[in-house]
C-alpha cells in the first residue's frame, strides 16, 4: 500500500517532469508545438490522477496525516516536506483538476505561437502550486510560492511583443499624469514588484518564527504541536507579536490581491485568458486564501494569547474594503476580462474577510471553513467565466464589451456555460456561489452588523455587474463586425463542464460543505436564516435592478450623457479609485526620482573620480614641479653649499698654529672656571 504522500510527491513531480520534457522538446523539435501541448496536458492529467489517488489513499482526509520529505539541511533541521491531510488533499484535487481542464482548453487557445514557452511555464506552475498546497512546512511552501510567482511573471508577459489586443486599459488614458493602461511586459513587472514587496515581509516573519522557535516554528506539525507555545513565548518576550502577525499575513495579502497590493491583478489580464483563468482566478491568487485557511486556526489562538487578536479585525476590514472597492470598479469596466479581474479580487476579499473576521471573533475554524468553501465554488465558476470570456474575445476580436452583444445566438453553448457560472457568481440559489457566499457573509457578520452590511452591499454590486456583463455580452444588440462562432470542442468542453459543475456543486453542497468543514477541523457552517434571506435578497436586488436598467435602456450609452455627479463617480470608479495613480505618485515616481538622483550622484562621483581626480593631480604635478625645482635647488645646491661653508669655517679654526689651539684650550678652561663659579655661586645663594 503506497502512502498518500507518495502520490502527492508524484503529482508534484509530474508537472516538473513535463516542464523539463517540453524544454527538451523545444530544443529537439522546435516546430512540433502539438507535442509540447500534449506533453503539458499529459503532465496535468498525471498530476490530476495522482492527486485524486492521494485523496483516496488518505480516505478522503479521514486517514489522518501522511508525510514524506527530503532533508534540506540537517544543520538547520529543515526538510523539503510534503503533507497529505484532508485540507491539502482536497485543495490539491481542485487545483489539479482545474489545471487539467484548462490545459485541454489551452491546446487550441494558445496554438503554435510561443507554445513551448507556454507549456514549460504552465507545467512548472502546476507543480509549484501543488507543492505549495502539499507543503508540510513554510520553507517548502515558500518554494512553491516562488515557483508560482515566477510562472505568473512569465505568463503575464507571455505576449512579450506587447501586441495591442492584449493590453489592459484604454491606451492614452492618464489620471494624475499616470498612464492607466498596461502592456504585457509592464504588467509582468508590476505583478512581480507588487507581490515581491509583500512577500518580503512574509519572509521576515518566517525567518523570525524559525529564529524564535526553530524548525518547529515553521512547520505545520510543529505549530500543531509544542512549537506554537514556544513561538508565542519568544515573540511575546521580544515584544514583536503584533508586528510579526501583520508580516505573517502580508505575503497572503499580496498574493491574493488585497489593498494596497491589488493593482497587479488588474493589469495581469494582459496574459492569455487561459492563464488568467488558471493562475489569476482559480489557483495562484487562492494561495493567499489557502495560506490564511491553513494557518489562521493555528496562529489565531497564539495571537489572542499575546493580546494582538485585534490585528485580525484590521485585516478583516481591509479585505472588506477591497471587496467593496473592486466590486464597485467592476460596475463600470468596459473590458470583459477586467470585470472578471475586479470580480476575482472582490471574491478573494470575501474569502479572506471571512477568515479574518471569524478569527477576530475567536472562531477561526468557522472562518476557515467559510473561506475554503467560497474558494472551491469561486475557483470553479470563475474558471468557467474566464474560459468562456476567452472564447468570446477570440470570436469578436475585441476585449471590449462595447463590441459584443447578442452573442447568445452565435455561441449558445458558451452562453449556457457563461450563464451557469454567472448565476453562481451572482449567488442565485441553488448554485454553489449562493451557498458559499452566504457562509462567507455569515462568517463576516461575526465581526458585527456593519461588516455584514458592507458584505451585503458588495453582494448587491456583484449581482449587478454580473447581470450587466451577461447583458452586454450575450443579450444586448449586436455591436460586432466579425462572424462569431462556437470554438472547437477542446475549448468548449472544459468551460461547459465547469459551468455545469458550478450548478452540480451547488446541488451537492451540503455534503461538500461537511467535507470541507471537516478538512479545517470543524463542521459545515450553519447558515443564519436571516442572513441567508438578506443575501438572497441582495443578489435578487442587484440582478433585478441591472436587468431593469439595461433591458429598458434606462442608462445612457455614452458616459458624456450622464449628469455631472454621476460622471465624476463614473470616472472615479473607472480609474480604479485613483489608487494606481496614487501608488505611482507616492511610491513609484519618488522611487524613480530617487533612482535618478542616485544615478546622477553616481555619474557625479564617476566624473569626480575619473576626471576630477586626474585634473587635480595634473594641477598638483604642476605645483609639485615648481616646489620640486625649489626643493631640488635647496637639496642639491644650497644645502651642500651651506655644509661646505660650515666645514670650511671649522677647517679655518684648525689653523695648524699651536698658539691658536692653546687659545681654544684656555678659553675652555675659562669656560670651565666660569661654570664652576656659577654653580658655586648658585649653590651658596641657595
Amino acid at each position, binding site marked *: 500500500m503506497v502512502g498518500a504522500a507518495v502520490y502527492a510527491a508524484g503529482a508534484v513531480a509530474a508537472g516538473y517532469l513535463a516542464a523539463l520534457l517540453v524544454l527538451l522538446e523545444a530544443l529537439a523539435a522546435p516546430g512540433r508545438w502539438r507535442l509540447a501541448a500534449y506533453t503539458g496536458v499529459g503532465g496535468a492529467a498525471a498530476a490530476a490522477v495522482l492527486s485524486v489517488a492521494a485523496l483516496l489513499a488518505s480516505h478522503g482526509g479521514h486517514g489522518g496525516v501522511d508525510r514524506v520529505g527530503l532533508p534540506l539541511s540537517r544543520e538547520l533541521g529543515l526538510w523539503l516536506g510534503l503533507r497529505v491531510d484532508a485540507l491539502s488533499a482536497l485543495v490539491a484535487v481542485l487545483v489539479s483538476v482545474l489545471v487539467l481542464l484548462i490545459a485541454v482548453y489551452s491546446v487550441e487557445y494558445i496554438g503554435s505561437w510561443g507554445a513551448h514557452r507556454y507549456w514549460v511555464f504552465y507545467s512548472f506552475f502546476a507543480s509549484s502550486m501543488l507543492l505549495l498546497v502539499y507543503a508540510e512546512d513554510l520553507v517548502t511552501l515558500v518554494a512553491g510560492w516562488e515557483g508560482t510567482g515566477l510562472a505568473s511573471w512569465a505568463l503575464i508577459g507571455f505576449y512579450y511583443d506587447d501586441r495591442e489586443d492584449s493590453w489592459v486599459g484604454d491606451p492614452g488614458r492618464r489620471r494624475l499624469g499616470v498612464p492607466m493602461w498596461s502592456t504585457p511586459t509592464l504588467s509582468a513587472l508590476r505583478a512581480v514588484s507588487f507581490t515581491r514587496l509583500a512577500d518580503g515581509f512574509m519572509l521576515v516573519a518566517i525567518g523570525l518564527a524559525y529564529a524564535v522557535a526553530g524548525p518547529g516554528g515553521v512547520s505545520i506539525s510543529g505549530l500543531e504541536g509544542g512549537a506554537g507555545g514556544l513561538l508565542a513565548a519568544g515573540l511575546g518576550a521580544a515584544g514583536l507579536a503584533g508586528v510579526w502577525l501583520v508580516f505573517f499575513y502580508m505575503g497572503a495579502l499580496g498574493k491574493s490581491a488585497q489593498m494596497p497590493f491589488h493593482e497587479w491583478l488588474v493589469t495581469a489580464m494582459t496574459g492569455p485568458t487561459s492563464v488568467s483563468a488558471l493562475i489569476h482566478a482559480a489557483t495562484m491568487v487562492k494561495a493567499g486564501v489557502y495560506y490564511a485557511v491553513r494557518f489562521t486556526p493555528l496562529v489565531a489562538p497564539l495571537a489572542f494569547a499575546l493580546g494582538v487578536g485585534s490585528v485580525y479585525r484590521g485585516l478583516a476590514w481591509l479585505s472588506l474594503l477591497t471587496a467593496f472597492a473592486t466590486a464597485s470598479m467592476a460596475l463600470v469596466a468596459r473590458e470583459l476580462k477586467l470585470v472578471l479581474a475586479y470580480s476575482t479580487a472582490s471574491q478573494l476579499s470575501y474569502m479572506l474577510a471571512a477568515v479574518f473576521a471569524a478569527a477576530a471573533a475567536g472562531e477561526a475554524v468557522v472562518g476557515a471553513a467559510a473561506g475554503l468553501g467560497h474558494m472551491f465554488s469561486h475557483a470553479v465558476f470563475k474558471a468557467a467565466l474566464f474560459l468562456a470570456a476567452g472564447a468570446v474575445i477570440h470570436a469578436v476580436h475585441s476585449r471590449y464589451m462595447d463590441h459584443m452583444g447578442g452573442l447568445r445566438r452565435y455561441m449558445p453553448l458558451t452562453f449556457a456555460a457563461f450563464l451557469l457560472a454567472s448565476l453562481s457568481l451572482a449567488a442565485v440559489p441553488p448554485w454553489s456561489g449562493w451557498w458559499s457566499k452566504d457562509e462567507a457573509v455569515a462568517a463576516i457578520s461575526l465581526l458585527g452588523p456593519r461588516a455584514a452590511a458592507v458584505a451585503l452591499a458588495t453582494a448587491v454590486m456583484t449581482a449587478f455587474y454580473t447581470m450587466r456583463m451577461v447583458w452586454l455580452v450575450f443579450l444586448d444588440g449586436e455591436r460586432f463586425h466579425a462572424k462569431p462562432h462556437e470554438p472547437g470542442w477542446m475549448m468548449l468542453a472544459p468551460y461547459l463542464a465547469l459551468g455545469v459543475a458550478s450548478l452540480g456543486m451547488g446541488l451537492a453542497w451540503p455534503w461538500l460543505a461537511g467535507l470541507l468543514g471537516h478538512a479545517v477541523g470543524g463542521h459545515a457552517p450553519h447558515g443564519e436564516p436571516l442572513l441567508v434571506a438578506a443575501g438572497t435578497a441582495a443578489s435578487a436586488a442587484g440582478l433585478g435592478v441591472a436587468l431593469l436598467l439595461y433591458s429598458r435602456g434606462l442608462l445612457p450609452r455614452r458616459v458624456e450623457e450622464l449628469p455631472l455627479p454621476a460622471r465624476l463617480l463614473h470616472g472615479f470608479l473607472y480609474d480604479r479609485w485613483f489608487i494606481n495613480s496614487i501608488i505611482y505618485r507616492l511610491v513609484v515616481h519618488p522611487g524613480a526620482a530617487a533612482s535618478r538622483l542616485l544615478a546622477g550622484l553616481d555619474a557625479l562621483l564617476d566624473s569626480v573620480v575619473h576626471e576630477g581626480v586626474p585634473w587635480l593631480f595634473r594641477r598638483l604635478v604642476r605645483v609639485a614641479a615648481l616646489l620640486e625645482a625649489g626643493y631640488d635647488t635647496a637639496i642639491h645646491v644650497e644645502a651642500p653649499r651651506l*655644509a*661646505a661653508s*660650515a*666645514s*670650511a669655517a*671649522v*677647517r679655518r679654526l*684648525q689653523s*695648524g698654529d*699651536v698658539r*691658536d*689651539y*692653546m687659545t*681654544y*684650550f684656555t*678659553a*675652555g*678652561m675659562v*669656560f*670651565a*672656571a666660569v*661654570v*664652576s663659579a656659577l*654653580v*658655586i655661586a648658585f*649653590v*651658596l645663594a641657595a
Partner: protein
Amino acid sequence: MAVLEAAVAEPARAVELGTLLVVAAYAFTGLVSPLLGPRLARLSLYASTGVALAAAAYATLRIAPLGGYVVGFDGAVVVDTFAIYMLSTAVIVFALAAVAARGVVDRWEAGEAFYAVAGLMALGIIMLGLSRVLYLVYIAWILAAVSSYVLIALYRDDWSAEAAMKYAVTGAVATIVLLLGVILYYTLAGSLAISNRLLVRDPLLVTPVVTLLAVAVGFKMGVVPFHGWLVDVYGNARPLVVAIASAAAKVLAALLIVRLIAPFAAATPEIVLWVASVLAVITMTYGNVGALLTVRDNPQKMLAYSSVAQAGYILAAVAALAKLPGVDNQAAIAGIAIHTSAYALSKLAAFLALDTGCRYPGCSWEQLRGLAWSRPYAAAALTVAAANLAGAPLTLGFWGKLYIVLAAVSASKLLAAAAVANIAVSAFYYGYLIYQLFLPRRGGDDGQVSTRELAAAAAALLTIVLALAPQQGYGLAVYAYTPAAPP
C-alpha cells in the same frame, strides 16, 4: 711555591700575582727588549700581550663569582670586568700594531723603540685602568702621555716632529690640569683612594674637581675646545703610529671617565648633564662638519675629524651617567666600553689601511680610488672600519652607538636627537670613503700584501666577530657596576 698556593686559595693574591706578571712583562718589553733589536722587541711585545690576555682571562674567571671585581695591593689596585674589557682591547690593539709594524718600523733608524714605547704605553694604560689610588693614576697618565708623544715623533720627518710638539705642548697643560684636579680630589676626599661610593656630596667642592678632571679627559679624547692638537696629529703624522695613538687615547679617556668622573656624576647630576651635553653636541657637530669638506682633499684628515666627532658620542654617554645609577647608567657605561673598543679597533684598521694604500705624506683621494681592486684586504678593512664608525648594523660600532643613544634618550631627548642627526651626517663621508674604494681603478700598481693590511683586516674582522655577542660585551662591561659595585 707559597705564593702560588696562596694565589690558588685567595683570588686577591692570584690577581696580585697576575698584575705583577703583566707589569713585569711590559716593563721588560719597554726597558730591556730594545737592547735586543727590533725582532726580539716585537716578540717581547707579543709575549707581554699573551701574558696580559691570559691574566685577563684568568682574572675574569676568578673575579666573576665575587661580584666582578677584586681589590689588591692593600687597596692600591682594583681589577674589575670593565677594566679587563677595555685593557684587553688595548693590548690586542698594541699587538696588532706590532704585527703591522713588522717590515716597516724595522727599517727605521730606531725601529726597536717603536715596540718599547708601545710596551710602555700599554703599561701606562694598564696601570691607569687598575689603579685605585690617585698617585697611581697620575703616574700612569704621565707614562702613557709621554710615550705617545715619543711615538708620534718616532718617524723622523718635519710633519711628525711638528705634530709631536703640538701634542706635547697641549698635553703638558692638560697634565697640569689633571694634577690640579687630583690634588683637589685628595683635599676633598681626605684620602688618595678612589671609591665608587664617594661620600662627598657637596657641589661646592665637587664641581671644581669634576671640571678639572673633565678638562684633562677632554684633552685626551679631543673634546672641543681642547681638541686643537688632535686634528693636526691624526691628520699629519704617519698613519702607522696614529693607529696606535688614536686607539690608546680613547681607551685611556674611557678608563678615566669611568674611574674618576662617574663617581661624581651622581653628586652633581645637573651640572654634569648640562656641561657634558653641550660639549657633546659641540664636539660631534664640529667633528662631523669639519669632516665634510675633507672629501675634497685628504682622507687622513677625514679620519682625524671623525675622531673628534666620535669623542662627542662618548661625551653623550657621560651626560647619561648623570642619571642615578640604574639601567640607564649601565647602558651608558656599556655604551662607552663597546663604543670605545669598536672605535679603537676601527681606527687601528683604518689608519693601517691608509698606511699601505696611501702615500705618506700627502695622502689623497686619488690614491684610494679603486683600492678594492688593488689591495682588497686594505679596502675590506677600511670598509668595515668606516661601517663601524658610521654605526652600521652588523658591526660592533652599531651596538656601541645603540647603547649610547639609548642612554642619551633617558638623559635628554634633545641630546639623543642631536646624536642621531650627527650619526646621519657622518654617514655621508664614511659612505664617500667606501664609495671611493670601489670605484674603477685608474692604473696604479698592485703591491705585495703587507702585514699592515693583514693586521687591519684582523682588527676589522674582530669588530664583526664581537658584534655577534653584544649582550656578552654589555654584561662584561657593566658587571662590576651592577648594584654590588666596588666600595
